[in-house]
């Protein structure tokens, strides 16, 4: 599989854990430590799926999501939000900002992989092209 996943999170450990888990399932993994870096990576490396933490410095997850959704060329990107905040309504807000899915931390790495797998399956079933243009 040559599906590219971008993990954007300022938490070093979470980035590492998710990276390891996804790499073991044959995904190509890119990482960014803040929202701005993530945005740059999206332009240059063209990932298919983005896992983004909602509270990052420089450009937080919500704003990043909104920016992505404003760009029609990026409409194929799947956005999966996660956060350690236990705010009620965070899921609703994330989806309102344009995220496709939401995972609450702490989460098991294998659950993250499973979620990414299911989005890949869904996209395939819809017949859309999976690799980025």
């Amino acid at each position, binding site marked *: 599989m040559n599906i590219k996943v971008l993990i954007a999170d300022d*938490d070093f*450990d*979470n980035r590492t*854990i*998710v990276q*390891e*888990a996804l790499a*073991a399932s044959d995904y190509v993994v890119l990482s960014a430590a803040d929202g701005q870096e993530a945005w740059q990576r999206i332009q240059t490396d063209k990932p298919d799926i983005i896992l983004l933490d909602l*509270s990052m410095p420089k450009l937080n997850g919500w704003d990043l999501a909104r920016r992505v959704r404003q760009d029609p060329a990026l409409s194929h990107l799947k956005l999966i939000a996660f*956060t*350690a*905040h*236990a*705010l*009620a*309504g965070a899921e609703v807000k994330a989806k309102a900002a344009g995220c496709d899915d939401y995972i609450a*931390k*702490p*989460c*098991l*790495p*294998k659950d993250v992989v499973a979620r990414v797998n299911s989005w890949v399956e869904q996209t395939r079933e819809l017949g859309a092209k999976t690799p980025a243009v």
Partner: protein
Amino acid sequence: MGSNGMSQRYCVLVIDDEAGLRDMLQFGLTDRGYRVVVAASGEEGLEKARHEKFDLVVTDIMMTGLDGVAVLKGIKEIQPQAEVIMATGYATLETAVESMKQGAYDYISKPYGLDQLCVLFDKAVERRHLKDQVGRLEELNRLKSEFLANMSHELRTPMNAIIGYASLMLDRLYGDLLPKQEQGLKRIETNARNLLQLINNILDLSKLSAGRMPTYIEPCDAKAIVEEVVATMASLAEERKLRLVTDVPAGITLNSDKTKLKQVLINLVGNAIKFTHEGTISIKVETLTGPARVRIFVQDTGIGIKDEDIALLFEEFKQLDASPTREYAGTGLGLSISKKIVELLGGAIRVKSAVGVGSTFIVTLPMQAPRPDDLPVAKPSGGCGTPLDKVILSIDDDPEVLSLLADNLQGTGYRFVGASNGQEGIALARQLHPHAITLDIMMPHLDGWSVLRLLKNDPQLRAIPVFIVSIMENKALGFSLGVTDYIVKPFDRQELISKLQACDKPPRTILVVDDDPDISRLLDEALHRDGYTVVMAANGQEAIRQMAARKPDVLLLDLMLPEVDGFEVLQHIENNPTLQGIRIFVMTAKNLTLKENTYLEQRVEMIVQKGSRDLTEVLDLLKTKLDAVKEVSA
């Protein structure tokens, strides 16, 4: 008085184009201890307001140039905390309403007496103090919420890392593992999971206690929720070879918080599984009327709970098995959280159990959960509940006194909570709804009288009896402000306890509906003796009228009445949501048909057959029921 006991002089700005009135007010108010500044026109008044802070402003309305309402608006922009009183000889409804809407404190017609004005001043100043108080408490609350939100994030992030790495390693992503390594990692994972659960519980509890747990009210399908819960818990039950069955009719929908409901059910089912070695766990849901409620039963065939332990069950951190082996591991928080959540949703939870047989947890919820925006209905602060529920809140700046009160209340069945200042006390009163409050008068910052006023002005707290515990004895003032009683220091333990217990049984209103005058008279006398307020009605129509005038706590209803009979009265109650919550006891000499019996059973607390017993027996039965620990109604 223009100055209070703390010798603070209030500043008043007088704006009036009439020189005579200005002089009179200046003289008269200065005499009463106020600091007075005068202005002859609206413009002058605003100019003065720009240079000096005022506590109070009294302004004429009809003036050349800027009129009173314009002045009011101006002042509110420059000094929003100043309380403005409009005074005028030419009162019109429109200006009055407009002034009040723009934030005036009050409206007084000329000519007025100086005393009248000063009374308004006192009230206005008091309102200002209360507003400041509320502002500070709101700020405190906001800080608390922020702290909770931050904490939750801070705690979850490292947990994620621990759980994540352990999981990766166990999945062999970091290479193969020796058996001992695997074991060690599994222990890390289990402990991490327990820690996470504990963190979640503590955060939930903090949120619930701080009143910061928002609820999302939406239509909830009971059957769907129970099915989801079963899906989550099925494998756990299977592991322990237990059967998990449900009995939930379709079509039961209640307006409540879906996520929290599931949380409670998962907690109850989880406990049931934990404490059951073999057999079945069943979940059953039914609907009730009078008022409209949903009742959920979670029953197990487990080890059961001892009678003496039942009272402790919902307490925080209490675990029934404190033995070193700790066969049933857990944090002891789950049930207390469940209880708080159920109560937040307007309901109640209780348990029935027999050792060696099993336990049944019963959750009763209203069909409509209370709206989060509205103030909760003031909970009865006296009377019902096990003794351990009765909290005595003591507000005193002297730690010795608090300690003494705590000691004196040991073993009396009351739970003691102390606060060392008025602000803390009021915040705790709002959280705990104590059975009674003892209050010291001489305290710095916010003295006892101010605290008393704050308590009596708060609709949620004003029903709580307040006892002044003080060396001072200003009883007249105290009673006029709403004090229940005085306990003079140094106090006697017996006196303290007997005075606190005196507010245990507040006189309750009973409406007795019976067309037989002999019976009504007997009931009246007997109930009166026991401290109830008795209202009588001789027929159904009158009963309905009496209930509209004043809603009784208890209704003793004879079924056979002229014109409008007992059944029609019951029907009226059912059709009238404002009459929800009345405890209904039906008495009748009639032989009821099965249909009538069933109809009544669903709507009343008890049916008494007059024919089969004599009146004293009936009375005893009623009294036992009335005096028994009330089922907390949802």
